[in-house]
């Protein structure tokens, strides 16, 4: 059986499973559509949250980000998990107690202001739409690489699949498909990693293999890796560069994670406040299964690439071009990988041509530049089974896993967008008299609209798609997180304070990003060049989240103290979200 047929069988089987779940878990009420009827077991919700959270970026890109930078990119590992500690202690239990359906709804009620609610809706939509573009294009790429359909067809298949289970089942359908998707993606991620770890270190657990002895050299794996990197002129894998910037970036990812609405709403689906607390712990356990493996995958794949390119060691001759493994050919077709025999010796020399020592060595040995000219970081996880020479079904599993990661996150984001439109804009602002059935229909129509928009943007990705990811995290950190946290932990913050705080955080963050990345990310309109010497206190735009959050906190505090304190019933509301008793009763409107 050829590889494409095998891929079709695995992907087809996983999609059939998702459809089956969609038909079984249809939503019959708004409570089921928005919050899965609040009957989800906390462990199951933890698993669904893990799939909701782990996107194409976690599954496909993260190991590559760590592999090619090393220690400094541990920020992603700590940042994308540490946010759950903030969410579990500062937000999730109280928002579950509040017992409504959306994040803007809490902000609107707590700050007794439609303006605050609309500002929150705008932040939510910008954050979620940005994210969903990445998921849709990721799914399109996975389809085109593994199923040999073109990316456009792939994108339509992905959209149609999400349409079936998200429009039919709402949060209920999404929850149970996410559980299935988690199982698919974690198995797909773990199996190749276990084989590679066994090959390199003899240890079947990749997370332990990372700190074990390398079978070939008898030295620790990381020492072997550092030795090869040093021989080829690359930076050491384990040394720090700028700890303060690394800390700031980690904090930015943590606060951003805690403020992401599509993750927060997952905690509205469990029956009790106590369950919301457990569920956050379980979510992190399931996330950690991938996140503890990812750094091992990164380090081992980097090592494998170097030994592939230098089969006799760096002192010997480089690999013959005709001896390159088959996966070089498969990936060269996609343009994500390219070699060029610059000095015409029939061998491919891979080294850091920017290093002065290497330039001297290159002159001595007759090399004319690095010949592995393109190596896209995203290949790493997708090509992992091929690099480790694993059987075809493992490759098919990776295809199904990558699609599961992209689709599960896309569905969660689409639900956050559609509930903000049907519940926060239509039900509460434009047409308060709408019936339960009418609202359910509106929710389904908004969902269909959101999918159409995501598909359109996936087909025509705006040139600024990559930059806007920084915007999504920056906005979540600077707008939603502080407003939610202050709404619970302070009784003094009032309507004016919160609204001005969110606007200040939002505007300062946008201005900082636009200054370096261009107005509304249009290339060429940036006021300052995007280089380290221009940054305010050396802070890159991607690291700005915590500063935006601090501005939000400060403005909210000052404005609130200069104006009247919130009315008594709002102070009573804050008292009531702080204790769990009575959560079951508050599910209505």
């Amino acid at each position, binding site marked *: 059986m050829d590889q494409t047929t095998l891929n079709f069988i695995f992907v087809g089987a996983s999609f059939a499973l998702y459809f089956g779940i969609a038909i079984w878990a249809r939503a019959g009420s708004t409570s089921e559509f928005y919050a899965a009827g609040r009957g989800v077991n906390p462990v199951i919700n933890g698993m669904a949250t893990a799939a909701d959270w782990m996107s194409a970026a976690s599954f496909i890109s993260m190991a590559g980000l760590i592999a090619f930078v090393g220690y400094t990119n541990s920020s992603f590992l700590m940042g994308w998990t540490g946010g759950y*500690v903030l969410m579990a202690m500062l937000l999730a239990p109280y928002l579950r107690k509040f017992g409504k359906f959306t994040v803007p709804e809490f902000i609107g009620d707590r700050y007794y202001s439609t303006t605050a609610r609309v500002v929150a809706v705008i932040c939510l939509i910008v954050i979620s739409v940005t994210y969903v573009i990445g998921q849709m294009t990721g799914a399109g790429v996975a389809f085109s690489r593994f199923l040999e359909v073109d990316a456009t067809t792939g994108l339509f298949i992905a959209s149609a699949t999400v349409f079936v289970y998200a429009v039919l089942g709402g949060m209920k359908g999404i929850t149970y498909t996410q559980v299935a998707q988690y199982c698919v993606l974690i198995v797909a991620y773990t199996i190749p990693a276990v084989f590679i770890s066994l090959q390199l270190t003899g240890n079947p657990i990749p997370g332990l293999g990372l700190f074990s002895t390398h079978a070939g050299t008898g030295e620790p794996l990381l020492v072997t890796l550092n030795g090869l990197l040093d021989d080829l002129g690359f930076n050491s894998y384990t040394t720090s560069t700028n700890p303060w910037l690394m800390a700031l970036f980690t904090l930015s990812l943590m606060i951003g994670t805690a403020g992401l609405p599509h993750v927060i709403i997952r905690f509205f689906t469990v029956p009790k406040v106590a369950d919301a607390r457990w569920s956050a712990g379980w979510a992190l356990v399931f996330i950690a299964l991938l996140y503890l493996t990812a750094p091992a995958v990164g380090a081992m794949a980097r090592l494998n690439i170097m030994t592939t390119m230098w089969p006799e060691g760096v002192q010997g001759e480089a690999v013959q071009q005709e001896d390159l493994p088959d996966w070089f050919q498969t990936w060269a077709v996609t343009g994500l990988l390219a070699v060029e025999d610059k000095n015409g010796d029939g061998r491919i020399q891979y080294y850091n041509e920017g290093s002065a020592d290497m330039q001297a060595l290159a002159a001595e040995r007759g090399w004319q530049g690095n010949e592995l000219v393109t190596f896209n970081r995203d290949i790493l996880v997708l090509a992992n089974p091929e690099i480790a020479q694993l059987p075809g079904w493992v490759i098919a599993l990776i295809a199904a896993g990558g699609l599961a990661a992209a689709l599960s996150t896309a569905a969660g984001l689409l639900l956050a967008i559609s509930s903000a439109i049907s519940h926060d804009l239509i039900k509460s602002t434009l047409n308060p008299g709408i019936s339960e059935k009418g609202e359910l229909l509106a929710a389904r129509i908004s969902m269909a609209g959101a999918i159409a928009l995501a598909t359109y943007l996936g087909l025509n990705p705006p040139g600024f798609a990559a930059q806007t990811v920084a915007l999504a995290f920056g906005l979540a950190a600077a707008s939603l997180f502080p407003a939610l946290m202050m709404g619970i932990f302070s009784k003094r913050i009032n309507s004016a304070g919160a609204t001005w705080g969110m606007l200040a955080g939002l505007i300062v963050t946008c201005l900082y990003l636009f200054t370096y990345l261009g107005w509304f990310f249009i290339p060429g309109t940036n006021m300052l060049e995007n280089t380290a010497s221009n940054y305010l206190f050396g802070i890159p735009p991607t690291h700005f989240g915590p500063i935006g959050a601090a501005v939000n906190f400060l403005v909210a505090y000052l404005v609130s103290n200069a104006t009247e304190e919130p009315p008594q019933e709002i102070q009573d509301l804050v008292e009531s979200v702080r204790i769990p008793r009575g959560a079951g009763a508050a599910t209505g409107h």
Partner: protein
Amino acid sequence: MADKSSANAYWAANKRIITISLVIWFFCSFGFGIILRPLIAGIGVGGTDLGFWFAQQGSILVFILLIFNYARYMNSLDREHGVDEQ
């Protein structure tokens, strides 16, 4: 909720465990994993130092323990103060 002072004691206890948890959260990620890494550089782990382990794995394991500990503590505190859901 029994009375005002019990409510205040409950909230104060919640804030105390959050503060303690976040101090540990900070030291295991930003501290040992990043800024204080040179201080514990002498302790070797599998070919590198303890700070590298904290940055790539240790911090995540500590985060999990912190959340489960918080859930366990708060769920029993709820019962003690009679504010749990029946």
